[in-house]
């Protein structure tokens, strides 16, 4: 069997801990009493059947939904922190369907990730033009480097509109990486990609992240990919955690097999 990536490969990223996280929509419990921990510097996968609440949980962690329970980032309670402020604390994410600004170039779509580096006042570029220009230049240079790393450099001036799905996804991942997040949430990064695309993508991602302080939590359906990259797996079913442990153990857990195969 292939071994999962050793957690020590990543630097010490953020520690995420969820305590009794719950949310319901019109009486339907989308998440109930979800508690687990994501160790700093680990790659953790969140898996489960469709409708299990994986993306809902991502929305709670990134602050798009306000949930019950407690969400801690490095021990600090961020349950009531607004989404933008969480981004500034180092939480970055991607979306199931890549969310890009139509009409913008690949480069511009990546540079917008720089907003997470601090609140940008509308008058900053008038009052402190030097500082703003410097920051913009820096963001552009970092974006160009990242695009190079992810094989998108030749597209940096291309509008994102006509790009194939796989490239849009990569652009979104690069945007999330730009502010050097401490917690990276990837929502189905391999959806619509074959192994021949998703494996090299993760190879680049994890090689880039090596030595950087980053924790990765990913929602993924491709078990091939999960088993390759994740050291730790949390399984959600019908809004609750049914398994939580090392990848190999979880794979053989009878409850997980039952949830997946519906027996």
């Amino acid at each position, binding site marked *: 069997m*292939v071994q999962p*990536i*050793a957690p020590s490969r990543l630097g010490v990223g953020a520690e995420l801990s969820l305590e009794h996280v719950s949310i319901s929509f019109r009486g339907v419990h989308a998440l109930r009493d979800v508690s687990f921990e994501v160790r700093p510097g680990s790659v953790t996968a969140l898996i489960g059947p469709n409708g299990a609440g994986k993306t809902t949980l991502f*929305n709670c962690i*990134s*602050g*798009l939904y306000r949930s019950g329970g407690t969400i801690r980032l490095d021990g600090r309670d961020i349950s009531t922190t*607004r*989404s*933008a*402020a969480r*981004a*500034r604390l180092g939480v*970055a*994410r991607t*979306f199931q369907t890549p*969310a*890009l*600004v*139509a009409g913008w170039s690949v*480069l*511009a779509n990546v*540079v*917008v990730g720089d*907003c*997470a580096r*601090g*609140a*940008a006042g*509308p008058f*900053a*570029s008038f009052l402190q033009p030097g500082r703003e220009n410097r*920051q*913009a*230049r820096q963001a*552009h*240079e970092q974006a*160009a480097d990242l*695009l*190079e790393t992810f*094989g998108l*450099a*030749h*597209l*940096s*001036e*291309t*509008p994102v509109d*006509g790009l*194939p799905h796989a*490239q849009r996804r990569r652009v979104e991942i690069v*945007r999330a990486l730009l*502010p050097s997040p401490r917690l990276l949430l990837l929502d189905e990064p391999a959806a619509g990609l074959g192994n*021949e*695309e998703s*494996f*090299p993508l993760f*190879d680049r991602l994890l090689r880039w992240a090596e030595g950087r302080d980053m924790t990765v939590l990913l929602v993924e359906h491709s078990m091939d990919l999960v088993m*390759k*990259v994740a050291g730790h797996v949390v399984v959600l079913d019908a809004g609750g955690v049914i398994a939580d442990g090392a990848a190999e153990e979880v794979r053989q857990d009878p409850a997980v097999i039952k949830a997946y195969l519906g027996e």
Partner: protein
Amino acid sequence: MSAVAAGVQRSRWPVRLAWVVGMVLVALLAFVITDYELFRLSRMACIGIAVLSLDLLTGRAGLISAGQGALFGLGAYTTVLLVYHEIAPYPVAIVLGSVLCFLVGLVLGLPALRLGGLNLGLVTLGAALVFPELLKKYSDLTGGVFGIGISPPQAPLDLALTSAQWLYLVSVAGLLIAMAFYTRLVNSRFGRGLEALRTNENMAASVGVDLARSKLLAFGISSAMAGFGGGLYLLLIGHVTPDTFLLTLSLSMLFAAVVGGLRSRLGVLLGAAFVVFVPDFSAAFGERGPQLIYAIALLLTVYLLPRGIVPSLAALGRRLLGRRAPRTPEPWDEIEPGAAVAPEQSPVVDRLGKG
């Protein structure tokens, strides 16, 4: 890897140069055409500032306002009152008017935190309807239906310019300042954040754009710009009445922004030109001529040039010139020639397999 960033900046230079040359030519017009034509062009510049402010709000941030004419009027009335009562000279009065509009804009923006689209349009429409009524109600201050006026400012004595020439140059300078401000703002981090939130609020929030703060500030700044245009407009016309700032003014501004093309500065100018010049040559169609022409132009634009005149024609031009976005093959193997992409040979798998 600053080559990419530098490349972007370099390619903007011809455009900037064209703008500067164009504006110099526009300034030189002051000495060529009649005072009446200059007056009309000055009006176009002032209304252009207001349309630009609306473009910032609607085109960039995606927030609709059907009340921009009221803020334009508020800027004009504040300026006229401050000058009339000799509280402040013209330039200071215009700035103070803009500041007041900024604050009012923040308040008008509050509904935008909860409402979007049509509902927000209705709230701002209310502002446009109420503004002239308020002016009539508080007639002690505003002069009621008869309005209030001041003598037109003259050119400084050492400049041998007629009043119309001077006001034309001032209006064009005001438009230039507004354009420069707009350009700098939309290219700033704040401006990019606004566009991100227009496209997808969840995405914007997740990259660190504070939605509430950005929307309120967009309203405030847009209102201040409209007020600035209104202040300049007052200098031009000298006398304002509530009827100067009816709902139709707000609607024509919205019309101008949409027909000219959102997110296009050239489109803003075209839209403003429409607002100023259409009533003149449509008089032949009777009293309702301008509305008729507006309606026809709006329908034609929506059907034929859905993104507005300038952006649609630009896109058409690019297509005709064959400058389409390049089709892009999957680049993995382009970057690492020879590197096979089969999973078995992927570097991740290699490393993991050996681990």
